[in-house]
């Protein structure tokens, strides 16, 4: 048998239930894997002692027959989530030395269900990026490589530490966040499963905010079933987050029936972009075929405002970010660069504390909210947002879910994309979902010509993650994606 850390969440759960191994053994196995994988730079903070302590507590609970749904499962936590007593950086210099005295609601839910924390995973600084190249703590390296090449590839972003760690089997699951594709794009780049649930499904309390109206927490795992298990524990209404929705939390795992006969799958013509790579097109066609074979009905649909989504997204997201990041000023916590007066303290702290991409977005966001530009940019972007939402509402009157590619390309090489706009185009298939608040999942579905993973995305109705898991399960099975990155790092 391979290592314990190679198991899926469901596999670990079964093994723990059957007393094949202990939570402590699981944690030890993961800790060993993490220590061996430092070349990937997936973790900002490893927390082996904390992991072992939590694992021992889990073993005690298992012994008493009090195991929670995630008892003893070791997980990685994106460093955007505040964790009590453990350094939390959002991969930014400006949060130097920041150790929260509180626990985010989502991670508290996970620990409440028995999960074990392995450490904090790197991401793009404040979740701003699509390649994990904006982290203050250096690039995260994708465990996957192009066939016959040693050139490092990006793991996607912003949840690149999460996707890399899960793909490299350092942990069976990791928390992530998705503002414009930050769960689904890294999942697609690493052959993992990532779901962005409906806006309001998971509490945002205790997660450093990027763009409040778009941010959602979600898991990255290796299988659809694991994503269902993990999301169930992460989600739930939180009175501390006014935008969290008080709605019944279904047993997502139970939705994995394998039966999608008669379901209606929409194929949006606007996602067939000019100049789209043939392999992406082929993968999409293949996906359509798999669902049809499983008894689903394929329906061509139109989402006419798709083309406006990306610019509108970058206006809304950056506007909110410019305001959300104002609190990092050197006065209360984190980095402080002294100045002769308060203005200079602000300027020096923020100049030193934020990286180039974060600064770019703060500037853009400040600009679009400025007097005289608000109507032309922010207000118009909000109107576009309404239209995008309406597009989806209309098609969801007749269909159950939408199938699209997750990304326009497979993972690219670090340093390859230097033009910000070129980088932003990575989000072309994913941002519409954030703009409309809908849930979407990325499923590994095949390999590129270079031998790296490609994903397909399913978009669902609001609070209908169950359909995504059901159809996603079928897609996963049909794709039979069982490739794993060759272990070059250990």
């Amino acid at each position, binding site marked *: 048998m391979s290592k314990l850390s190679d198991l899926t969440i469901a596999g670990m759960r079964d093994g723990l239930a059957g007393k094949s191994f202990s939570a402590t053994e699981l944690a030890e196995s993961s800790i060993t894997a993490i220590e061996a994988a430092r070349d990937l730079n997936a973790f900002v903070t490893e927390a082996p002692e904390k992991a072992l302590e939590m694992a021992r507590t889990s073993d005690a609970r298992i012994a008493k027959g009090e195991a929670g749904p995630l008892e003893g499962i070791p997980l990685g936590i994106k460093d955007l*989530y*505040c964790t009590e007593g453990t350094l*939390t950086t*959002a991969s930014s210099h400006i*949060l130097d030395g*920041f150790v*929260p*005295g*509180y626990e*985010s609601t989502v991670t508290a839910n996970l620990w409440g269900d028995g999960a074990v924390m392995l450490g904090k995973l790197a991401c793009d600084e404040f979740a701003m990026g699509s390649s994990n190249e904006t982290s203050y703590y250096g690039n995260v390296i994708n465990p996957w490589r192009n066939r016959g090449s040693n050139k490092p590839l990006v793991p996607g972003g912003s949840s690149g530490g999460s996707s890399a760690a899960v793909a490299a089997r350092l942990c069976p699951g990791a928390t992530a966040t998705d503002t414009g594709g930050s769960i689904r794009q890294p999942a697609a780049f690493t052959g993992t499963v990532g779901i962005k649930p409906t806006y309001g499904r998971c509490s*945002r*309390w*205790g*997660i*450093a*905010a990027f*763009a*409040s*109206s778009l941010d959602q927490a979600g898991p990255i795992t290796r299988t659809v079933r694991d994503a269902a298990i993990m999301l169930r524990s992460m989600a739930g209404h939180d*009175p*501390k*987050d*006014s*935008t969290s929705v008080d709605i019944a939390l279904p047993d997502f795992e139970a939705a994995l029936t394998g039966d999608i006969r008669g379901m209606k799958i929409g194929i949006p013509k606007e996602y067939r972009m000019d100049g789209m790579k043939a392999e992406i097109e082929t993968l999409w066609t293949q996906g359509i075929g798999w669902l049809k074979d499983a008894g689903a009905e394929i329906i061509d649909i139109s989402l006419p405002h798709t083309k406006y989504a990306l610019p509108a997204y970058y206006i809304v997201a950056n*506007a*909110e970010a*410019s*305001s959300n*990041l*104002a*609190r990092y*000023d050197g*006065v*209360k*916590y984190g980095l402080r660069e002294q100045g002769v007066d*308060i203005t200079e303290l*602000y300027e020096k702290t923020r100049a030193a504390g934020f990286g180039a991409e974060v600064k770019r977005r703060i500037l853009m966001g*400040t600009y679009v*909210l*400025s*007097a005289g530009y*608000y109507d032309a940019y*922010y207000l118009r972007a909000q109107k576009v947002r309404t239209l995008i939402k309406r597009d989806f509402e209309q098609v969801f009157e007749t269909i159950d879910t939408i199938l699209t590619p997750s990304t326009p390309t497979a993972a690219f090489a670090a340093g390859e994309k230097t033009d910000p706009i070129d980088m932003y185009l990575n989000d072309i298939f994913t941002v519409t979902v954030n703009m409309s608040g809908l849930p979407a999942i990325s499923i590994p579905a095949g390999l590129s010509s270079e031998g790296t993973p490609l994903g397909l995305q399913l978009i669902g109705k609001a609070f209908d993650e169950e359909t995504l898991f059901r159809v996603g399960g079928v897609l996963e099975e049909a794709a039979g994606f069982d490739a794993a990155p060759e272990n070059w790092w250990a």
Partner: protein
Amino acid sequence: MYEEARETDPKKYIAGAAGDWELVVGLEVHAQISSKSKLFSGASAEYGGEPNDHVSIVDAAMPGMLPVINEFCVRQAVKTGLGLKAQINLRSVFDRKNYFYPDLPQGYQISQFKDPIVGPGTVLLDMKDGARVEIGIERLHMEQDAGKSIHDQHPSKTYVDLNRSGVALMEIVSLPDIRSSEEARAYVTKLRSILRYLGTCDGNMEEGSMRADVNVSVRRPGDPFGTRCEIKNVNSIRYVGQAIEYEARRQIDILEEGGSIDQETRLFDPKSGKTRAMRSKEEAHDYRYFPDPDLLPLEFTREWVDEIAAELPELPDEKRARLMSDYGLSAYDAGVLVADQASSAYFEKVATGRNAKLAVNWVMGDLSASANEKNVGLDQVGISPDQLGGLIDLIEDKTISGKIAKDVFEILLAEGGDPRTIVEDKGLKQVTDTGAIEAAVDEVIAANPDKVAEVREKPRMAGWFVGQVMKATGGKANPKAVNDILKAKLGL
């Protein structure tokens, strides 16, 4: 567009070197909502405490913290809107007002910009000359207070106290309907009185629970509005008046010298009584308002508002009308009494079941004079409503005269006690025994034959005889009886 509600009133003009000027004032009053906890966090909103004692991780803007609206504060704002006879908006929106300051931990203040919770309303002022002035309310919105920067504790550092950070405020914005500093003072006084009746703000200006931004401009009568200056954070009613007086004169002087007014923000210095420039329009912040994505639009039902409306207490205007009709109070007296809840309650306790006219005279006369002298409220003069009522009872049942009553009042003020006991112990009872009065009258007539002759010529002289008789009886004789007997004996 704002249409001027006020007719121009030449009596209010300010004389300039060359012709009259009209003053135009609008006020933005920041009133702290009476609430145990802050607007968006569970931290205590209590005044005082050690620095940074009342600060939650939400108030300190820790990463990932989110605001949750305090329903009680919303209720208080709605209640205030109803008290201002204003439109209540069933849907309002919280916006972020972005600027950097160390005592603003989030880097933005959560406020309501485009869609406030309360729309247009009115406040009625009763001026000393009997005029009723209606001041329009443009809007009321809720917002967070900032913390406090303390600059005098360290030679090079500024300390920050976040106790006030996140405390709930109502900003009540008037229309530019105010035309004199007196009206401005009356407006703030009336507003404070309404808020206190409602229990939505304690109105303690010295603790910062209420403060005003005062917008002042001047113009030639009949002209459109002039350029205004905003005087920030004026924290007493007296200073509001002083700041306006100074600022109006400053602007008139500039204009009369051919200058023009720069639109700017100014500060009032109570020590010098002057205003000075704080920042110009060019330096004004671009606050980059946008809807706070952490909060849903604030929505409630008409039924909920009706429920709050049903719980409203009697407000100053209604109470004033009732006091006038129930007790025959003059408009001005009633206005003075209702300005302070304790005063009107005091009055009602005295007046209930008694001669209202007497109650009014005593409360508005001697008691008010003492209160003014001591600079306290009517209820703090040191004479209880029961004591004053007892004194009035003694006048009514003719045990003592009004004149003796004044003496008893002084005794009550100095020594306290029960009025009836005082009258008995000191032998102040009125003499109504006509025999004794007749004897005294006879004595005075016999002793003053010359005066008797005079009074027959000039009947007005009778007063002199009354005085002599009262003196002879130690003031205890019933004045009416003295009069009657004198008239009979002198044949007037």
